[in-house]
C-alpha cells in the first residue's frame, strides 16, 4: 500500500537539468531523507494506477484531453481539505518522488525544450505556484469548479481554454464559486483572444459593483453583458434587471 507523503523543501536542490530532461533518476536513498509522513492518511495506489493508465492509453493525445481525463480523478482520489492541498510538500512528493515521468509526459515540448521547473515544483503556497505544477493544478481546478449539481462538467470546460485556466486562480473575484460558474456558462467557447479583451472589463466592474451581493443570475448578466456589448459604456445593468 502506498500512502501520500510529504517531500520537504530540502530535496528541491536535487531537481536539476538532467533530471528534468529525464536523463537521470534521483538517488532514492538521498531523496528518502526528505520524505515525511503528513498528519493524515490517504492511499494513492489507485491514483498512481490511473495516472499510468492515462499515460499508456492516451499516448500523444491533446494535452487538454489528458487534463480533462485526470483532473476529476486526482480530485476524487485525493480527498484533501483546502488547507492540506495548499501544502507544496504533498505535490512535490507526487511529482518528484512518485511520478516524475508523468510531468515529462504531460509537459513535454515537441521542439526539445526542457519542461519548466515549476511543473515539478511548488515553491510556496501561492496560487500562481499551485496553478502551474502538474498535479496541484489538476486538483485545484477540479476543487474550484466541482459542484454537487453538475459534478465535474465545469472542470472539463476550464481545460478548453488556457485563459480560463490562468484566470481561475487569478483575480480575487474568481474566488467566488458563483462567479466561476457564471463565467463558464456565459463565456465557454469564446476564443482566448476575445477573452483577453473581455476580462479586464470585468475586473474594472468588480471595483465598483459588489459581486458578493449578486446572485448567479445577476453575475451571468454582468459577464454576458460584457461579452455581448463588448462596450465598456453599455448599460449592462439594464440587461441584468431584465434577466432577474
Amino acid at each position, binding site marked *: 500500500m502506498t500512502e501520500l507523503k510529504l517531500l520537504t523543501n530540502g530535496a528541491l536542490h536535487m531537481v536539476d537539468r538532467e533530471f528534468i530532461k529525464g536523463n537521470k533518476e534521483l538517488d532514492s536513498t538521498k531523496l528518502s531523507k526528505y520524505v515525511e509522513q503528513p498528519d493524515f492518511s490517504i492511499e494513492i495506489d489507485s491514483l498512481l494506477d490511473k495516472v499510468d493508465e492515462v499515460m499508456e492509453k492516451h499516448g500523444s493525445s491533446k494535452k487538454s484531453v489528458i487534463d480533462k481525463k485526470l483532473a476529476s480523478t486526482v480530485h476524487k482520489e485525493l480527498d484533501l481539505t483546502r488547507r492540506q492541498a495548499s501544502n507544496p510538500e504533498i505535490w512535490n512528493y507526487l511529482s518528484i518522488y512518485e511520478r516524475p515521468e508523468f510531468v515529462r509526459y504531460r509537459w513535454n515540448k515537441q521542439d526539445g525544450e526542457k519542461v519548466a521547473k515549476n511543473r515539478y515544483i511548488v515553491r510556496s503556497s501561492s496560487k500562481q505556484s499551485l496553478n502551474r505544477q502538474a498535479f496541484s493544478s489538476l486538483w485545484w481546478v477540479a476543487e474550484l469548479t466541482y459542484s454537487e449539481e453538475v459534478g465535474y462538467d465545469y472542470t472539463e470546460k476550464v481545460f478548453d481554454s488556457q485563459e480560463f485556466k490562468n484566470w481561475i486562480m487569478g483575480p*480575487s473575484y474568481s474566488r467566488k464559486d458563483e462567479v466561476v460558474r457564471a463565467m463558464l456558462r456565459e463565456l465557454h467557447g469564446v476564443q482566448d483572444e476575445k477573452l483577453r479583451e473581455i476580462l479586464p472589463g470585468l475586473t474594472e466592474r468588480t471595483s465598483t459593483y459588489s459581486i458578493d*451581493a449578486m446572485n448567479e443570475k445577476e453575475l451571468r448578466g454582468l459577464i454576458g453583458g460584457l461579452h455581448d456589448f463588448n462596450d465598456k459604456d453599455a448599460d449592462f445593468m439594464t440587461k441584468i434587471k431584465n434577466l432577474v
Partner: protein
Amino acid sequence: MASRKTTLRPYSFAENCIDLELESFKIDGSIRKGTLVDEGSKSIDLTSKGFETATLKFSYNINEDLSEYSPEDEPPFEILVKVQNITTHTRRVILRENIKDSGTFEVILQRKDFRGQIEIEPEIVRQDSTHQQQGYATDTRKIIGDGAEWTIDIDENSASGSGIACVCEDFSELEDERITADMMFYLDISNMDEPKILLNQKSEKMRNIMDNRASQGKNARIRDILNDVVFLPVMYQLLLRSLASTDPKTGESSHPLERSMFRGFTRKMDYDEEKIESLASTLENPSEVEELSSEIARYLQIERDIPEDIQKMINRVQN
C-alpha cells in the same frame, strides 16, 4: 517601480464609514480570557492557538449619515461582510443584512479551510436602483462605502512577507549575468507575486544547516544567524519597494506581498494616517530617506528577533 492602485469612483463614496470591533472569541467552543488584539490594531494573531474551530464575535458601527450618499431619503442600502483567504482561494459572505446603525456578527473559522492570513472586509451596497442623478451611485449592487479591513493570522510567516521561498541553485550554472558564482544569495523579484531567495548551493555544509529544522543546538543557532544575514538585506529591499508601491490612502498594491509588508511595517511602527500619507514624499527626499532607513532597520531587527538570535549564538559559543 510597480504602479499604485487606486479605485476612482465617479460618485460620492463613504470611505471608512464602517467600524468593526472584536467583541469576544471562542477557541474550539471555549470562551477564552485575555485579548487577541492590541489597542488600535486590526490584526488578530491565532498562530499560537492550535485551534480546529475559532469563533470571533464582531460588532459593527456605521459612523456616517449614509443618506448623504443617495438621492433618496431612505436609501436601500445593505451591509455585507466577506471573508477571504488568498492561499486557499476562498471568498465567502458571512453577513448580509439591511443597513442599521450598529449590529453584531460571528465569524466561524475552521482551520481545515484556511492557511496563512484571512481577511475580513465590510462594505455597503445598494439593494435597488433609482433614477440616475449625477454624483450618486444609483445602480443596483453598486458599492457605496467600506470600512477598514481586519486580518487574522493562523499560521506563522503569513504576515509581513516573511514566508518567501528559499531555493538552492548552483550559481555557476545560472545563465543570468546579475548572479555570479561568488555570491551567497540573490533576491529574485522577476515575479513579485512569487519572489524567491536564491541560495548558492555550492556549499553543501551551508545548505545542510539552512535545511536544519531543529530548534536547539549548535546548527540551529548557526542557521538562525545565516537566515538573518540573508533575510536582512532582502527584506530591506522588499520593504522599500512595498512602501514605494502601495497607495498610502487605500493600502492597496498590485501585489499581496507588498500590501502585507506595507501594513506590517506601518502598524508595528505605529504610523498614523498623516505619517502614512507622507511616505510618498519621504521616499523622494534624500534627507528624509535616511530617517526612514533607520526606522526600517529597527523594524527588521525587531521582526526577525536579531538581538535574540545573536545572544543565543553567543551563549552557545561561550558555553
